[in-house]
């Protein structure tokens, strides 16, 4: 009963958010400039939440997230060039996921045995290899990239997919899978000693995280309508890592907050040129210095906890208060 109510609260929040944006767009408060910002933030949320699953829950330091985004973006661009319909777009999302998962397995099975920084550098290398391949293929139009991609998604599609991917990842993390991952992160040897196969669970998290990255890539392609291999370099992976760490490693709420703050900051400073990156760098260093565990640390917005707090308080007032 309690669970159903809490799910209801989240559902209402998501729908309310949708109608709020819808209303603001209709009222002209959100112009195309701000809409662009919102969509970018949404795409970054999808990417960073997936990356937080890999880094925060599985404890696997991946520096190659943008490579998987590239797979989704290019798959979609290629498919919708032939099939420029909404159906074509959805087909391309699933095709992108399939290819990304395949790559994640090829890359993950050997590299997820590596530890910490070695894994980071290996995943970074893997993403660079993906980028170089795209850079040299005919079908992806090489270094020039692909342009005039039909615009098949606007903010509502992005909004819905943000909700769907976040629900999937959060639910996955709050299950035996998430617990197994945390166990492996805390102490791999102990986890193995109780019959957990570390590689299997790490791979599951890696595959799921990269699949959502591919979805984000697909959205990026049809919204921005132009993609080049340069969009998916190391620096893109790094900026996703920044979102995760700034929000708090392991806190999905933090990831969303950091993605929004950085997205707004980025847009607000856009006219400043090189000074923008300088300010960005200073803010980044200062946040890390004063909040080393990220803005929200391990905090997670949970209506279950809020619920428990309220009900325990009402129980104190009325000891016989019924538990619903």
């Amino acid at each position, binding site marked *: 009963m309690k669970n159903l109510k809490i799910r209801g609260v989240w559902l209402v929040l998501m729908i309310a958010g949708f109608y709020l944006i819808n209303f603001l767009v209709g009222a002209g408060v959100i112009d195309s400039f701000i809409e662009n910002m919102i969509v970018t933030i949404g795409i970054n949320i999808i990417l960073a939440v997936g990356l937080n699953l890999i*880094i925060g829950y599985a404890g696997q*330091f991946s520096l190659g997230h943008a490579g998987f985004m590239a797979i989704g973006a290019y798959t979609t661009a290629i498919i919708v060039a032939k099939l420029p319909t909404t159906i074509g777009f959805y087909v391309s999302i699933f095709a992108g996921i399939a290819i990304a998962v395949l790559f994640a397995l090829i890359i993950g099975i*050997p*590299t997820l*045995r*590596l*530890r910490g*920084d*070695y894994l*980071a*550098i*290996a995943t*970074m*290398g*893997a993403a*660079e*290899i993906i980028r*170089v*391949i795209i*850079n*040299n293929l005919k079908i992806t139009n090489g270094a020039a990239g692909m342009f005039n991609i039909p615009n098949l998604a606007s903010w509502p599609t992005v909004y819905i997919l943000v909700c769907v991917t976040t629900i999937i990842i959060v639910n996955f993390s709050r299950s035996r899978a998430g617990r197994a991952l945390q166990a492996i992160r805390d102490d791999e*040897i102990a986890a193995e000693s109780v019959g957990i196969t570390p590689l299997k669970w790490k791979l599951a998290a890696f595959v799921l995280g990269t699949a959502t990255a591919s979805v984000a890539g697909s959205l990026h392609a049809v919204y921005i309508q132009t993609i080049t291999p340069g969009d998916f370099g*190391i620096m893109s992976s*790094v900026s996703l*890592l*920044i979102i995760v*760490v*700034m929000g708090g*490693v392991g806190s999905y709420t933090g990831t969303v907050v950091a993605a929004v703050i950085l997205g707004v900051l980025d847009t607000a400073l856009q006219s400043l040129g*090189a*000074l923008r*990156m*300088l300010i*960005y*760098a*200073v803010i*980044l*260093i200062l946040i*890390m*210095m004063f909040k*080393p*565990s*990220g803005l929200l640390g391990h905090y997670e917005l949970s209506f279950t906890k809020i619920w428990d707090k309220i009900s325990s308080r009402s129980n104190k007032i009325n000891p016989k208060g019924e538990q619903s």
Partner: protein
Amino acid sequence: MDVFLQQLVNGLSLGSIYALLALGYTMVYGIIKLINFAHGDIYMIGAFWGYYIINTYHVDFFVALVSAMVVTAILGMVIEFLAYRPLRKAPRITALITAIGVSYFLENGMSLLFGANTRDFPQIITHKTLTFMGIEISNIQVLILCTSIFLMIVLQIIVKKTKMGIAMRAVAIDPDAAELMGINSNHVISFTFGLGSALAGAAGVLIGLYYNSIDPMMGMVPGIKAFVAAVVGGIGSIPGAAIGGFVIGTLETLIQAVGLSAYKDAAVYIVLILILIVLPTGLLGKSAKEKV
């Protein structure tokens, strides 16, 4: 065969630059387990210092090199003091993000001050080509190789023979135990940053002479390549970093020579991943298996 040897010589010159950079990565990583993302930008600053001092004061190569090393050493220590020292006890990923922040700061600060455009590095040494057994070697290549190897030998002596070197190794192995032995780990870490940064500064001046052009973003790609070199060699190992640098430099040049230059970066990363799969801690890295 001649072509191969020719490319090998070219590869070794490029490799020695990577090696100089990789040494800084490996020393810093060895001592505080930080991937110092800003290291490539120190190299950029070294190149810019060389550019500035040669153009303004018309100094010779030697003065430019040594002064660049001094300036970058100080810069490295200042960065360590301001940005990394407060994070000594913070999660490692936090320090990494700070290093990325410092890197952005240096790149964009330099762009803002000097403009983002590419500049010609003053050619203080007249370019001469020596022919030796059918292989062409420029005097600059010889200079790069000799300077790098000389600096590596000096580094090896510092690390192996001096008191500071012993302290560096002690802090790298166990900082707490080193503190108990009366070693001030902050001084040692600061010294390590200075040493690594000086090598990067030297590499910056050398690359300016070699490629004849510099810009504020020039440190990014070589920085990453040099880090890969350090990992290939076994991060934390000084001879490993030198070997890794030469391996990556030579590999890149050879791939280019066989006409696959579009794939040279991919080749570097494929080699990296293969080496890590076979030797998870690189060529000379020590495997640290957890005791149960």
